[in-house]
């Protein structure tokens, strides 16, 4: 059943207040296709009833499910390849030199979805910089979605997910077969702390980071939200640190404190 205009307007505000995600007019079909299943699994006949429930009980159990259903979790191993190549060929070798006294590195993947992005970096570290095993590495990955965090900690991926972008030699080395699925080995899972973090709520205390990945999430937000988030990241990024955004994202005209900088065959942002 098509969603009514007042119900869609309500959802726009509801989702925006809780995740900053902007549902533009014309995205009614998205609300219908994603919230239909949420309504059904809650035993409700349709979206009208689901919205009615949210109106009377906006802090109930259904809220998280609705927000999670409205986020896009699309991700893959080695997504866009170039940022990871840049880490391997330029950035990590430089950072390892710069931090050779401290022997410590802090990394953060924000909006890490089901975990493919942080695991890609973890594999890259193990594979190319084995000496870092002796260093103090803090690797934090965060997302808004409890379900995505649960999946990430478990590290179990379907055949289609490991088919996507994951080099076969890494599959063999860093995964174990579990029925028809594949699980990331404990050795890699234990490298990463998966934590809940809503980018538009106050952030928990975090260390100063050498590398921050926040890719393919700012695109869903409006300009003031992007600016606020980049401002917060700036406070957490070390003065010689590196920020990576998604291919369709930039700091230009949003936060002029960041300078776009060539990183191998792609761009990163620096202070």
């Amino acid at each position, binding site marked *: 059943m098509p969603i009514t205009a007042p119900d869609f307007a309500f959802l726009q505000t509801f989702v925006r207040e809780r995740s900053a995600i902007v549902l533009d007019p014309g995205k009614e079909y998205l609300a219908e296709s994603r919230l239909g299943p949420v309504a059904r699994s809650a035993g409700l006949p349709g979206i009208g009833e689901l919205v009615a429930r949210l109106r009377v009980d906006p802090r109930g159990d259904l809220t998280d499910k609705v927000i999670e259903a409205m986020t896009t979790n699309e991700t*893959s191993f080695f997504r866009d390849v170039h940022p990871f190549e840049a880490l391997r060929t330029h950035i990590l070798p430089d950072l390892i030199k710069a931090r050779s006294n401290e022997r410590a590195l802090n990394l953060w993947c924000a909006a890490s979805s089901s975990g493919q992005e942080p695991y890609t970096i973890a594999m890259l570290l193990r594979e190319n910089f084995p000496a870092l095993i002796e260093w103090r590495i803090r690797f934090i990955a965060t997302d808004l979605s409890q379900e995505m965090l649960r999946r990430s900690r478990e590290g179990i991926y379907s055949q289609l997910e490991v088919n996507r972008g994951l080099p076969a030699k890494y599959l063999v080395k860093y995964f174990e077969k579990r029925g028809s699925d594949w699980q990331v080995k404990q050795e890699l899972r234990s490298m990463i702390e998966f934590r809940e973090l809503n980018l538009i709520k106050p952030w928990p205390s975090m260390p100063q980071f050498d590398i921050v990945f926040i890719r393919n999430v700012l695109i869903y937000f409006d300009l003031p939200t992007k600016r606020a988030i980049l401002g917060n990241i700036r406070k957490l990024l070390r003065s010689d640190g590196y920020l990576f955004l998604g291919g369709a994202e930039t700091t230009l005209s949003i936060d002029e404190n960041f300078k776009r900088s060539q990183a191998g065959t792609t761009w990163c942002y620096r202070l």
Partner: protein
Amino acid sequence: MRALVVDDSKAMRVILSQLLRELRFEVVDACDGIDAIEKLKDAGTLDLALVDWNMPRMKGIDFVRHVRGQGLQPQMRIMMVTTETEMDYVQQALTAGADEYVMKPFTKDVILEKLGLLGITAG
């Protein structure tokens, strides 16, 4: 760029060949390992081979061993495209000299991303 597609299923050969042609590959195809070795003889230089595992007469893995063992077409990147999904098969393929491994069923993006890993980009 030139590619070889080896699969005993005609439908699969058509799908893969079409996908590669969209990427501006010139495609040669073969229906099993023996046929593929035959086709290699006068195919000229090839950049890529997509190879199924289970085929009559000669399996894909034996084709890979033959090609790598004889040092034929050393520049050719080999990607297995197969319904075999056990770890042991992936390992065997890599040991034999395959560069990548795709498990069927796949989507077009899967192939594109894997080609990207091999440094082969669209267009």
